[in-house]
């Protein structure tokens, strides 16, 4: 049993110069066999292992990660959390996650710095206005908080936005989800890792999957850089590398992996206390607790695993940012990076069984997976433990690409791809 983090443990450890903190998770060598193996030690994978152990009473679980935990897209996103999606299936999925976020720090005894500072989506033309109003109504019918703001209300909520009607893409209005916000992405991975470790989950880092062994239509285990590990159930949560794993067993997925970029500025005093997204001009911005502006750019057009994107994408995003926020014109950008996102044709994720028994995939989150981390882990754990999807992720099966029952969130969800 781990010691709880509290004000008292903080004071106690201050006396020993914070050198004697208990390790948040162990660094074990893999055992020969596990009940279930999760491939991918990002937020979604660690959350999956956590809920498998916590809610489904599985104790013999491993998470294998080729690098270090939280070192992929979990540590590379812009940390935005919201659930204002258009379609019923998506609303159910993302709001399930948002509800877990609201008490996650307490549950994990780990401060994930969840901050419900609101997310505002801007409209720049009449079609945007109609789409955003429609989405607001759809959200409210699904019990998700959403309001439509006119230009004056947008300006009042975020005064630094340029609401002049003379700019190339004037702000005509926007939507606001007040329950939405941001969280500290590293803390999410670390909190889940610590929680899972406490329940006996083996978190194995620097262990790359090289192959998946199967007997006919049933999985038997994985070949890794640390040897063969046996398991009856394998859950793959490998984000941009999902197709690489799928190709190992001859499965094809409806995914394309593309670089998505983000960048942060030098830290400044508090200037923007919410998250503002604009689909039409493709710019979104928030401010981290360190004071950096966190800016999300778009995906590149082409498939690439190189974790770096094109300069013109960043340039386009910054052009839009400058027109909307002239006050940022003299800000310097500090860092820029790319992550590889796996995009589905309908811009919705896959949390599904496959044609191979014991093999499950959780992928296709594309550009917006971080927000779903707790819900995705919870529902994927349910799917793996019961060999059946939960009703909230039933629509997000692989078979929808055969049946045609797609959850088409491209553009519909105020999401900019």
């Amino acid at each position, binding site marked *: 049993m781990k010691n709880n983090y509290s004000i008292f443990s903080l004071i106690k450890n201050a006396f020993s110069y914070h050198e004697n903190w208990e390790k948040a998770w162990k660094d074990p060598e893999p055992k020969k066999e596990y009940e279930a193996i999760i491939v991918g030690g990002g937020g979604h994978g660690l959350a999956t292992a956590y809920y498998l152990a916590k809610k489904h009473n599985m104790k013999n679980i491993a998470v294998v990660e080729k690098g270090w935990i939280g070192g992929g897209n979990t540590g590379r996103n812009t940390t935005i959390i919201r659930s204002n999606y258009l379609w019923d299936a998506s609303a159910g999925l993302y709001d399930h996650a948002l509800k877990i976020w609201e008490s996650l720090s307490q549950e994990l005894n780990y401060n994930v710095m969840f901050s419900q500072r609101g997310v505002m989506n801007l409209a720049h033309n009449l079609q945007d206005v109609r789409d955003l109003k429609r989405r607001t109504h759809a959200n409210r019918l699904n019990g998700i908080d959403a309001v439509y703001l006119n230009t004056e209300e947008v300006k009042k909520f975020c005064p630094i936005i340029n609401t002049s009607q003379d700019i190339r893409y004037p702000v005509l209005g926007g939507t606001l989800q007040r329950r939405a916000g941001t969280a500290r992405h590293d803390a999410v991975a670390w909190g889940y890792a610590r929680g899972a470790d406490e329940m006996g989950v083996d978190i194995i880092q620097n262990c790359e999957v090289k192959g998946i062994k199967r007997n006919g239509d049933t999985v038997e285990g994985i070949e890794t850089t640390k040897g063969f590990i046996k398991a009856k159930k394998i859950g793959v949560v490998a984000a941009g590398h999902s197709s690489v794993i799928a*190709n190992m067993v001859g499965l094809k997925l409806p995914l394309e992996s593309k670089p998505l970029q983000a960048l942060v500025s030098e830290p400044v005093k508090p200037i923007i206390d919410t998250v503002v997204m604009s689909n039409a001009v493709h710019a979104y911005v928030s401010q981290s607790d360190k004071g950096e502006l966190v800016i999300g750019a778009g995906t590149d057009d*082409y*498939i690439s695993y190189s974790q770096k994107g094109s300069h013109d994408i960043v340039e386009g995003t910054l052009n839009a940012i400058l027109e909307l926020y002239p006050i940022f014109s003299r800000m310097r950008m500090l860092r820029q990076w790319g992550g590889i996102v796996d995009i589905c044709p309908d811009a919705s994720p896959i949390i599904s069984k496959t044609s191979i028994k014991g093999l499950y995939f959780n992928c296709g989150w594309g550009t917006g997976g971080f927000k779903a981390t707790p819900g995705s882990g919870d529902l994927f754990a349910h799917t793996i433990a019961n060999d059946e999807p939960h009703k909230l992720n039933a629509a997000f099966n692989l078979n929808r690409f055969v049946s*045609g029952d797609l959850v088409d969130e491209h553009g519909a969800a105020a999401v900019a791809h």
Partner: protein
Amino acid sequence: MFLINCPFCGEREQSEFKAGGEAHIERPKQPTELSDDEWAEFLFMRKNIKGVQFERWNHAHGCRKWFNIVRDTSDDQIKAVYKMGEKPPVK
């Protein structure tokens, strides 16, 4: 970001081009005969290779012609460029 050697215009910045995804996915000859599984395969399923991939590109802000390239998706190095209808080079 990289340069692409358009077979019609020469070397230009990648931002002038539009990526068209995996190449050599043949349109079904008998669409009416296709099962749902085969349609899914044709429309949605992709190899999404990490490594050497054959893909289609369009010089959207140039000659607007389509052509094929062979590119390593792990480091964006282009191995070969060839015109539509030409045989893909053997690596």
